[in-house]
């Protein structure tokens, strides 16, 4: 135990003496969280919408003003002859064409038609923008129907109106920070702890101190713990910083248990620190370590479902995401943070993380050699 204690002491002395490293570890994550927290916005806003009103009726003007009053759209007015040119040049995301006779058809009870033209280069954006437009049409239709009913109560029996009332749980204001901040926090934790362990050990390889250590009677377990424990503590400091930024800057309420989050982090850190250690057993230089670790990290980040929904991936790849430790940690962190999830709510994710962490750590210890064969 005392050997490990000496290791922890030594690593902390080195980390706290390296002022530049310290800035990297403590200040950069804060800036990253604030900048990325604002930058990664999965909501679609400011959709550039062109409306071509050929009807010029009271009804069509009502529709127009509904689009105008929505936050989601920036209205572009143009002549329809320029439509395809504007689309080609990427000036318009979506356009609505209201044909002549729109109000008349609506009033007569026959189906009124409007045309929607969508730039689907970004299919995600196109889908969401179409949804918004349909939403505006939906509420317009609803109001129009109600007005008709007021005028002619006797037609009520002919109209079946279905009203969907949605209630949003856990994030009532649908604040996008709620989902992104815990995600970015986990992302930073992953990157920092994987890289720091890999680079630190490989650096000792480069300067020759690792060989000096290998000629001492230190056991593999002592070495691995001696290297991982200081960086695990550092990982907790990172997590605490991220929580503070999330709660104080972004005002995200923390609904769950700090203890459970700390426990989950321990399981997760075994994975990331183990991965870093594993990288250090194959890399001879810091450059090699950086590249190797980065491949692992990119896989983890993309497959975690943080940036793109897992449901959108091909089925085979969806199974692959179960191999991504980040997938579980993001779910667990969001759950604890936003829903106040308990240990039992998250038992499958925690079990997966425990298995992953133990396996990764065991593999790293197994792979680590005190002598060269």
């Amino acid at each position: 135990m005392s050997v490990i204690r000496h290791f922890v002491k030594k690593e902390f002395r080195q980390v706290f003496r390296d002022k530049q490293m310290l800035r990297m570890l403590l200040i950069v994550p804060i800036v990253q969280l604030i900048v990325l927290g604002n930058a990664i916005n999965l909501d679609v806003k400011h959709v550039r919408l062109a409306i071509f009103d050929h009807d010029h009726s009271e009804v069509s003007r009502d529709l127009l003003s509904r689009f105008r009053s929505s936050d989601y759209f920036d209205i572009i007015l143009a002549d329809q002859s320029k439509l395809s040119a504007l689309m080609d040049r990427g000036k318009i995301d979506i356009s609505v064409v209201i044909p002549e006779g729109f109000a008349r058809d609506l009033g007569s009870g026959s189906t009124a038609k409007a045309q929607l033209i969508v730039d689907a280069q970004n299919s995600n954006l196109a889908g969401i923008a179409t949804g918004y437009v349909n939403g505006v049409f939906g509420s317009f239709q609803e109001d129009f129907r109600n007005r008709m009913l007021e005028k002619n109560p006797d037609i009520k029996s002919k109209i079946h109106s279905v009203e969907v009332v949605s209630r949003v749980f856990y994030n009532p204001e649908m604040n996008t920070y709620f989902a992104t901040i815990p995600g970015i926090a986990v992302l930073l934790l992953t990157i920092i702890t994987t890289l720091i362990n890999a680079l630190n050990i490989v650096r000792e390889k480069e300067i020759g101190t690792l060989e000096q250590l290998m000629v001492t009677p230190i056991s593999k377990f002592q070495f691995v713990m001696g290297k991982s424990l200081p960086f695990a503590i550092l990982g907790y400091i990172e997590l605490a910083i991220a929580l503070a930024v999330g709660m104080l800057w972004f005002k995200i309420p923390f609904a769950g248990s700090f203890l459970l989050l700390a426990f989950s982090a321990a399981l997760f850190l075994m994975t990331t620190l183990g991965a870093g250690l594993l990288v250090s057993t194959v890399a001879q230089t810091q450059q090699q370590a950086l590249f190797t670790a980065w491949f692992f990290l990119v896989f983890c980040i993309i497959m975690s479902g943080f940036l793109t929904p897992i449901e959108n991936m091909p089925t085979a790849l969806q199974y692959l995401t179960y191999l991504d430790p980040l997938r579980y940690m993001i779910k667990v962190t969001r759950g604890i943070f936003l829903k106040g999830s308990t240990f039992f709510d998250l038992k499958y994710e925690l079990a997966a993380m425990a298995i992953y962490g133990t396996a990764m750590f065991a593999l790293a210890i197994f792979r680590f050699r005190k002598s060269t064969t």
Partner: protein
Amino acid sequence: MNAVIEDSNIVVETHDLTRKFGKFVAVDKLNIAVKRGEIFGFLGANGAGKTTAIRMLCGLLEPTSGTGTVAGFDIVKQAERIKSRIGYMSQKFSLYNDLKVEENLEFYGGVYGLDSRALKQHIHETLERMNLQHVRTKMTAELPLGWKQKLALGAALMHNPDIIFLDEATGGVDPVARRDFWDMIHDLAAHGKTIFVTTHYMDEAEYCHKISIMHQSRVLIQGKVGDLKVQTGMKTVEELFKHVVTQGDSA
């Protein structure tokens, strides 16, 4: 000559110890025997196989074939038991530049499992012996190379090992610091420590009790320095070395 040297206890011994890297034979059938309290010098040009041999003896590199024992333990099967009995210092300065002098000693002593009382005492003694008390709170990076090497030797001795392996330990160090260094080595040998050095400085070889000249992975000649000079009619180790290597090349 010191009485301890007459002790016939063999502490380092190898039989046909061989190491290959792919097709390249780095060490070819090495047979040596080093007695307690001896200063054993491994001589040879860069790339002769000295470092490979020493790394096998210290349990850093597994041999391809052959056997060896250090401090009575098998170098393959009991490498970890050997490690607590040996001190090792390589040509590469291997202390932490971003730790203070005393922090380096504290760390290495701690890794060897010294308890806090022993640690404190050994740090004090080492600083005293190495004449480094006045720089104990200095950053290691700020020391001149000669002092750094003394500190590295001090760190390698923190756990009071029986056998000390020094691999080109004085490389790049100025002559005065080298003399200091060798005074310490003699002192250690006089206290019963066995010293195993590799060097390509021929003047340093004069300080050894026994030498072994390695050339292109093989030992060409070995024995007591005085005996070898008489045998070959050479006055200095440098002449001896040139003589042996030239003969080896023509053979």
